[in-house]
């Protein structure tokens, strides 16, 4: 009986399982990053740590092994780590092409084993600017926080790590509001050291940097961290890559569902191309779709995609009323995904002479949507569909 409860619990946990594998390809090497949500780690009763073995195998399309990495870890149990992610990275060399990365994550103390597969498409061009990973340490346990402003517990380390392949003239890291001014920003000297006006100092290898953020925790509580790259007369701006709930997206929704969600935002031309894609290539064409809609050229990060994913996740959280009637499929979910959270909501749950209704108003785009509950079970339906397009 006890075993079966544990089994059911494990299945439930696996459903929430959300790892991600990110590959950044540079001229001299390829960095592979694996992020595992801390909430997925299972600890034995009263145990201080959990022992896990992680192994990643990257194979080419011809099933030939291109890279392999194995690590045994002991993961600390601490409630401060809830909702964060545990990062692992290793360096290898991958030529352009299509790869399948398989990760096996094995609990050495309890014996459960999970695997995760992701296809990696590496183009012929190098990653121009990689993700900026903020890596915090709590009693030597590394993790990626959800926000830099709420790290109130004692940390042993807090670093920002990023790689790049563009010939950057200088890199600028700032905390607080700052004008785009190269003089007050970071100036990189000939030895490759960078300083900035807040005195953050760090040593730089060509193509990557590491900044110690620990002394600036009090400032980080009030001001956001910004990163800027200067390449001749081009400036790239970005924020650190924090762990977020949109990570669950890839595992929560099947490729077919992801496709249906993209239909909400794709133009007619894009949709006519996407709808003719064979089943096996769904994920690839979704990647392609997002690459076209990347608002920040040069960087690996795609803010539009993250925004869309978090909207889908939020729509599901808000509007799901039954397992089979997902929130994102509902009318309110669709409007939420397309237009974001409304500026104003007015509703009447029990009007005397009409059906219950909700009105969403978007002031900026001057749109108003009327939802009414004709069935009486909370399935609000859009009444003015013409407004939507």
């Amino acid at each position, binding site marked *: 009986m006890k075993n079966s409860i544990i089994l059911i619990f494990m299945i439930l946990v696996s459903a929430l399982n959300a790892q991600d594998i990110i590959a950044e390809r540079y001229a001299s090497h390829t960095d592979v990053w694996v992020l595992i949500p801390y909430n997925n780690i299972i600890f034995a009763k009263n145990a201080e740590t959990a022992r896990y073995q992680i192994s990643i195998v990257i194979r080419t399309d011809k099933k030939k092994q291109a890279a392999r990495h194995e690590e045994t870890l002991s993961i600390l149990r601490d409630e401060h780590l809830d909702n964060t992610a545990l990062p692992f990275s290793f360096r290898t060399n991958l030529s352009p092409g299509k790869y399948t990365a398989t990760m096996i994550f094995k609990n050495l103390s309890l014996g459960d084993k999970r695997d995760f597969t992701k296809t990696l498409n590496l183009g012929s061009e190098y990653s121009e600017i990689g993700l900026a990973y903020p890596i915090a340490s709590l009693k030597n346990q590394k993790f990626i926080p959800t926000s830099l402003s709420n790290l109130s517990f004692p940390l042993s380390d807090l670093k920002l790590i990023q790689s790049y392949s563009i010939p950057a003239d200088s890199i600028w890291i700032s905390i607080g509001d700052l004008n785009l001014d190269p003089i007050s920003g970071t100036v990189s000297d000939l030895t490759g050291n960078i300083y900035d006006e807040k005195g953050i100092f760090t040593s730089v290898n060509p193509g990557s940097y590491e900044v110690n953020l620990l002394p600036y925790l009090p400032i980080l509580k009030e001001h956001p961290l910004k990163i800027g790259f200067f390449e001749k007369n081009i400036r790239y*701006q970005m924020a650190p890559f924090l762990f977020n709930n949109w990570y669950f997206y890839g595992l929560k929704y099947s490729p077919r569902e992801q496709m249906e969600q993209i239909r909400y935002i794709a133009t007619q031309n894009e949709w006519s191309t996407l709808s003719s894609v064979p089943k096996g290539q769904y994920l690839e064409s979704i990647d392609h779709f997002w690459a076209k809609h990347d608002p920040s050229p040069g960087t690996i990060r795609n803010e539009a995609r993250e925004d869309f994913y978090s909207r889908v996740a939020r729509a599901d959280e808000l509007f799901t009323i039954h397992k089979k009637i997902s929130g994102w499929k509902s009318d309110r979910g669709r409007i939420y995904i397309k237009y974001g959270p409304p500026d104003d909501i007015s509703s009447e749950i029990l009007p005397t002479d009409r059906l219950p209704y909700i009105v969403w108003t978007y002031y900026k785009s001057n749109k108003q949507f009327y939802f009414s509950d004709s069935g009486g079970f909370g399935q609000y339906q859009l009444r003015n569909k013409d407004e939507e397009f």
Partner: protein
Amino acid sequence: MKNSKALCLITILLGICLSMAASEKLSMHIDYTRFLNDAHQTILQLDYQAPYKNLIFLAAKGGFLAELETTLTITKGDSLLLERTITDNIGLRNKYDTASSKSYLNRISLLLDNGIGDKDTPYQVRFVATDLNSKKVFDWSQEIPALTPASMISDIELCTKVQADTTQYLAKFKRGNVLFQPEPSAIFFKHLVSELSLYFEVYASAAGKERDVLFEVLVEHGEDLVYEQKITGHLTKEREGLSLKIPLEKFKPGIHKGFLSIQTNDMVEQRYFDFVIAERIEKLHFALTDPEEEIQLIKIFGTVRIPTDWKNMNLETKKTVISQAWQTMAANASLQPDDLIFMISDRIDHCNKNFSHFDAGWKTDMGRIYIRNGAPDDIEKDQTGDDTRFVRKDIQIWKYQKQKNAAYVFVDVQMSGNFKLIYVVNDPMENSHPDWLRYLGESFDTDRLKQ
């Protein structure tokens, strides 16, 4: 104590640096031209040009964006006639354009109202442009008098291009369906512009619309008269827009002074214009020494349109076309032109070493495929079957995974080592030989081309 002195010094130096940065100047060009409208009021046309390489671009919204805030102030005597601030949003898709010699061009047209103040008092025009990303400032002011209503001729607009164009590109610079692309910098590169176009308008005097006119154009370089032309004409309209072309071929680099006079009946009016002839400043990109051969090489890639009048171009223009083609191809491949040329030169060397026959290796069928696609992922060497009309011949099957699983079958038709492309799959740029079955035989299994 020593430390604090050093700190003081650093602070002062930093302060000086900062103040220098604040007053940094933005380099751009502006030019004005005055015309008369039907009511004989002056229209002021301000053309400004900001070279992309002088602006700072932010990587955002799927491209590279620069913002140029322009403020135009016009005063006459003590009265402020106009103060207007507009932000020009400049967006580029191609990263390499940000560092190129291309520039952003815009125009402001205004009606100078003669009714205010004394007619002879000039207008004070001040134009301030700020690059919002770098805070660099361009400040220009000029005293501009209105054209007298009795003027016979407008100011001269210097154009790099006057051509028919029905697209929306540079819509502000069109008169009818003809694009007059001005060059406010007045710098003309000989390899880019073969002739300088002067646009001006001629107005009828009170005497009547019908008139005979004599134009005289002179261009001086230092002390020398380098160009002279006289044109006579008969004009019938009240307002006539004319454009004159001056061929630049024989002009030497340097400042040139131009002079245009118009003569009708007994009246003569003159206008002056200055311009600079410049030589190429940017680096040329080329892989081969002969432009004729190189254009064949560029044609292999099929991504760049070759101008139809290639045969009539001079050597300098051909070099420019080739250099621009490499730049376009490099931008498409997200590479620097030099890196692309290095890669292609490597492939040419490989082709010449391995596929050369009567002709250079890169000009053969195998060379063409190798240059475009690089080394194949898989090469299968075999012989044709017995059921062809010929004796057994060597064949090679080249397979590529990256290029959408393209595969090519080459046959050594003449048994001389010069392999010909006979059959191809998954490459829309190549055609199979219509009679490929005759070469390969009925028994040839096309499944062999699958990956």
